[in-house]
């Protein structure tokens, strides 16, 4: 069988499985971005807060999850999570081992890491919001929540777009490590295809090329989005 049949869409081809796996990689990365947005927002708020213990906790979080190897974080969530699920099962009178679903474990683990980076992105974006606008909002009597919703969030989201693009690219590469939990994303699927056909070189080249497609496409999408956002900045009233 020629190599073109192996990666094609025929009876013995792995083409369609690899495309599905690409979708799985995108899904787990997108899920981790959402998990990370929640963690990132909480940690950024903690780091910007006036309370010293909150700032300390925020700093500890970003130091640990940016300083520990990504693989170690995945082991923590996968093994630690499975132990927790098994303990809950035992409590419900289920004997035996229960595993945390690998998609969930991957999304949480990569999300924890991405949360640490996103916290820094949001914090930087917060500093970029003009102080005068916050003072003005306070002066016309907006409450904390309304100020947050109407003044801070719309601007922070715009300012953090370039940073979020970087976080997305990092998470896309971190998602390859989720393959150790057995999730059939692009890395794991290339590995299985390589192992069962003994065509290691071919399938890792193809897998790598598909990752290049993903990173290049997302780079395009993010720079397009940044251009759109920049346009809205130029036309907005009251900025310069």
């Amino acid at each position: 069988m020629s190599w073109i049949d192996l990666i094609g869409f025929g009876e013995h081809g792995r083409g369609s499985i690899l495309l599905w796996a690409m979708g799985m990689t995108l899904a787990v990365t997108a899920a981790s971005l959402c998990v990370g947005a929640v963690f990132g927002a909480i940690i950024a708020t903690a780091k910007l807060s006036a309370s010293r213990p909150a700032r300390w906790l925020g700093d500890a979080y970003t130091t640990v999850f940016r300083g520990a190897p990504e693989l170690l974080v995945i082991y923590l969530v996968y093994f630690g999570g499975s132990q927790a699920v098994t303990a809950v099962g035992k409590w419900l009178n289920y004997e035996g081992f229960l595993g945390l679903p690998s998609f969930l474990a991957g999304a949480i683990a990569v999300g924890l890491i991405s949360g640490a980076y996103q916290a820094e992105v949001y914090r930087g974006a917060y500093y970029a919001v003009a102080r005068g606008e916050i003072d003005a909002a306070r002066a016309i009597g907006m409450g904390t929540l309304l100020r947050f919703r109407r003044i801070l969030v719309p601007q922070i989201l715009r300012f953090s777009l370039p940073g979020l693009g970087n976080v997305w690219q990092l998470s896309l590469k971190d998602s390859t490590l989720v393959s150790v939990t057995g999730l059939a994303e692009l890395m794991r699927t290339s590995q299985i295809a390589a192992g069962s056909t003994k065509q290691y070189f071919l399938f890792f080249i193809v897998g790598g090329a598909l990752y290049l497609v993903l990173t290049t496409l997302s780079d395009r999408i993010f720079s397009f989005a940044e251009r759109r956002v920049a346009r809205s900045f130029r036309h907005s009233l009251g900025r310069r």
Partner: protein
Amino acid sequence: MDFDVAFLLSTFVKLVAAVPMTLGLFAASVSLGALLALGITYCRVSGGPLLSVFARAYIFVFRGSPLLIQMFLIYYGLGQFPAVRHSLFWPVLRDPFSCAVVALALCTAGYQAEIMRGGLQAVPAREIEAGRAAGMSRLLLFRRIIAPIAIRQALPAYSTEVILMVKSTALASLVTVWEVTGTAQRLISQTYRTMEVFLVATLIYLLINFIIVRLMALAEYRLSPHLRERPDPASSGGRQGEIHG
């Protein structure tokens, strides 16, 4: 979670035993990567159109694809060909440690080349012109003017990349090199005490990173004497404003 000091200590001792392996991977791959990056930066900046396209393609491929797939490609992929198995590279490609070093070095070279190019671009044209006007040869110009300024400019980005490399050495455990993360994984599956092992291993990585950050800050300090406050001439030997090349 009960707090078991004896277990934490024994875990720490077992993991510290794997630190030389992590540091070995790190030192070998960063220095090999720096050499490669120098070559790629040369191709990108002052090579002809062909070499420049090669450098661009290299940077695109190695920065755009994940490190794990590069490592598997080298470790599992290359060994598939009889020609490779009979070549003189086989002793290098057969060994997991050197395979991991090669993969890490190839990957970081792509990132380091971009950092070096950024540093070179920050050298003001007038300084180079002044050096030329003073009659410096190309090598002297590079050694005395270009390199010190470019290195100074590139250091912050370079230290970020170096820290990322410490973390990247963890992937070597997936090609059976028993460094800190691989050892931690083995301890977790033996003891099922995930949290404790994770915290001890993370502490070790943070310590390594902390030392590297301090060393980088020291290098930055040494390379920017012109930004420091001048010492009192009466108390010092008067070696002010000298740039250490």
